[in-house]
């Protein structure tokens, strides 16, 4: 089992949450800033407009007194004092009477002849904006009065810079907060994940040290602990129960065996009884082995085992029996294939399969064991050319107490637990158990996950 990757970057959920928060906060801040921007822009424009209106009112008053002459003097005076304005008065022929400009700006249209501020226009002069009023005074005197918009633009540019800095700051703070939250959340969740990994690896008694924090993570840890306590109690009860059953069954059986051993003169009968008792115990052990293997499924307690060596040993034990029965046994075992397993259980699996095969096959039948490495797995395959499985039995051949009717008819002994134990032990090892279709006989394949060194 691979331990949880605890890098904060893996805290996708936390990151998503932090990103949503950051975007929301940034959007709200930007919205507020945009409203303020609009307001400031409006106010500043209004102020420039007011100044322009005042200028025009002044010129209007002068014009009322002495017409163009007064206006010309006023403009000349203001130009001389270097006021921050755009002023221009021209004569009928286009000659400049007074003003700050060297000529009439190209493309600027003269609207009406009064001194009202409307309509005003915006023009760009020397790279900055101006709010100007272009008129043609009665008699054909073009007049241009303008106020610069540069202060407005400067202020707004400063505001925009401020907004960008603020946006960057909000995003940076959000990312930082997200990172910290991810680190913290992963730290807290990582503890629980690490605990789950240890439990999955077979350490049911594993618990988190230290006090629970009074928050949702503490609550999660408390719940996980409560769950583990329950599982552990159930597991202990199961183990205890199977031990108790074994004890309560075997102790009286033991008394029976002792008494049987004292009986004289009926050796055959005594032997038959003892054989029956052995058979009952075998069945009973198989059931307990199955439930134990199922209970331990996916758990720890497995160690590196040389699958090839175990297979070869068990094969060696049964090969002679197969030969004696007239079978044609052959084995092809790739040496040194390691798996994570339990030697006794693996030996039991193969012994069960071999026992079955030898039981069902007749003289002349082939019996072949292969142990090979293929695609990340170490496959143990036992193929015989015997009668095979009846088609209707293939689906549930590995269920407990499944026996073919023909066996009962032929008087082949068994309790239908052998293959169920094979399945439980294969599952205990995380191995894939299959019955490949073959032309003749039965082939059982168990593909163990290979142990990489």
């Amino acid at each position, binding site marked *: 089992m691979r331990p949880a990757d605890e890098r904060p970057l893996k805290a996708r959920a936390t990151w998503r949450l932090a990103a949503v928060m950051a975007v929301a906060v940034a959007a709200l801040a930007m919205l507020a800033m945009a409203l303020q921007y609009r307001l400031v822009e409006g106010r500043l424009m209004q102020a420039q407009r007011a100044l322009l209106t005042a200028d025009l009112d002044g010129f209007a008053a002068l014009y009322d007194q002495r017409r163009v002459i007064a206006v010309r003097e006023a403009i000349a005076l203001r130009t001389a004092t270097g006021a921050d304005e755009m002023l221009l008065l021209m004569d009928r022929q286009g000659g400049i009477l007074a003003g700050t400009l060297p000529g009439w700006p190209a493309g600027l249209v003269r609207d009406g002849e009064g001194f009202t501020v409307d309509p005003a226009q915006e023009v760009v002069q020397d790279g900055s904006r101006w709010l100007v009023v272009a008129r043609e005074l009665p008699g054909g005197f073009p007049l241009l009065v303008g106020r610069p918009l540069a202060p407005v633009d400067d202020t707004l540019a400063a505001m925009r810079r401020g907004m960008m800095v603020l946006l960057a700051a909000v995003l940076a703070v959000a990312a930082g907060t997200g990172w910290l939250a991810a680190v913290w959340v992963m730290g807290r969740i990582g503890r629980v994940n690490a605990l789950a990994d240890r439990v999955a690896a077979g350490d049911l008694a594993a618990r988190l040290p230290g006090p629970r924090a009074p928050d949702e993570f503490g609550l999660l840890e408390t719940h996980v602990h409560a769950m583990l306590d329950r599982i552990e109690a159930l597991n202990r009860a199961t183990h205890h129960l199977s031990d108790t059953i074994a004890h309560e069954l075997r*102790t009286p059986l*033991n008394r029976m065996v*002792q008494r049987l051993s004292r009986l004289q003169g009926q050796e055959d009968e005594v032997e038959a009884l003892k054989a029956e008792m052995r058979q009952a*115990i075998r069945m009973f052990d198989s059931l307990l082995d199955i439930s134990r293997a199922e209970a331990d499924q996916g758990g720890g307690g497995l160690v590196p085992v040389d699958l090839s060596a175990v297979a070869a*040993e068990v094969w060696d*034990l049964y090969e002679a*029996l197969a030969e004696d029965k007239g079978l044609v046994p052959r084995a092809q075992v790739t040496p040194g294939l390691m798996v994570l397993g339990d030697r006794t259980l693996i030996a039991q699996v193969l012994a069960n399969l071999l026992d079955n095969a*030898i039981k069902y096959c007749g003289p002349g039948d082939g019996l072949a064991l292969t142990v090979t490495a293929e695609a990340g797995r170490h496959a143990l395959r036992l193929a015989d050319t015997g009668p095979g499985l009846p088609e209707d039995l293939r689906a549930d051949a590995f269920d407990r107490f499944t026996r073919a009717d023909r066996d009962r008819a032929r008087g082949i002994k068994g309790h239908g637990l052998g293959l169920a134990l094979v399945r439980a032990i294969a599952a205990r090892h995380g191995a894939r158990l299959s019955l490949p279709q073959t032309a003749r006989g039965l082939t059982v394949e168990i593909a163990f996950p290979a142990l990489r060194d």
Partner: protein
Amino acid sequence: MSDASSPTVSASGNILIVEDDPETAAAVAAVVRDLGCTPVHRDTLEDGIAESAGDYRVIVLDRMLPGGDGVEAMARIRAGGSRALILVLSALGRAAQRVEGLEKGADDYLPKPFEPEELRARLRALLRRGTMQVLDNDLLAFGDLEIRLKARTVHVKLTHVSVSPKEFELITYFARNAGQLVTRMQLLENVWNLHFDPGTNVVDVHVGRLRRKLEDAGSHAIQTARGEGYVFAPLPASEA
């Protein structure tokens, strides 16, 4: 060179039985007396551990005892200074439990229900083990049957008998327990290192092959003992 053929070890000494079922304890005690040893019985784990400090050659230890599991208590027995060999005799007889017991330091593990003959054979093997530590000579000679351990060869009347590696281990195990009953279960455990009952008598086939090879060479060393196992008795018994 040693002649290891002297058949019966006349055992003596004390054997401690820690067992809560009186009937089982009586059966074990009977076997112990049969072997010429003196049984001492305790029926709780605490009493057993306290008593184990005494001079015992073998301790027959139950597992599910009032007071706890005998297998878990073995460390305490060892810590108490006992040098006795420990035979666990328990209802917890599944293969995994037997292996667990042996891995935790038991010298032998016999599941209940047990045959008295089986217990006798195992106790005898343990008693022998206690006395025959220095049987590490290269040559085991039983009259005209000779086993060379380093060369891994077997000779009968100076004729080489070709045996498979497993058959060699088998005959070596027999030789180390010469003159005594050796059960199928003992062979399975000690020669094949398998701790479950395979149901069929797979061992018989191997013993049969070895026996035929020896008989072809003129030795009747291996004999079947009434239902329970085999006796390796290379000397006069075969001619008798």
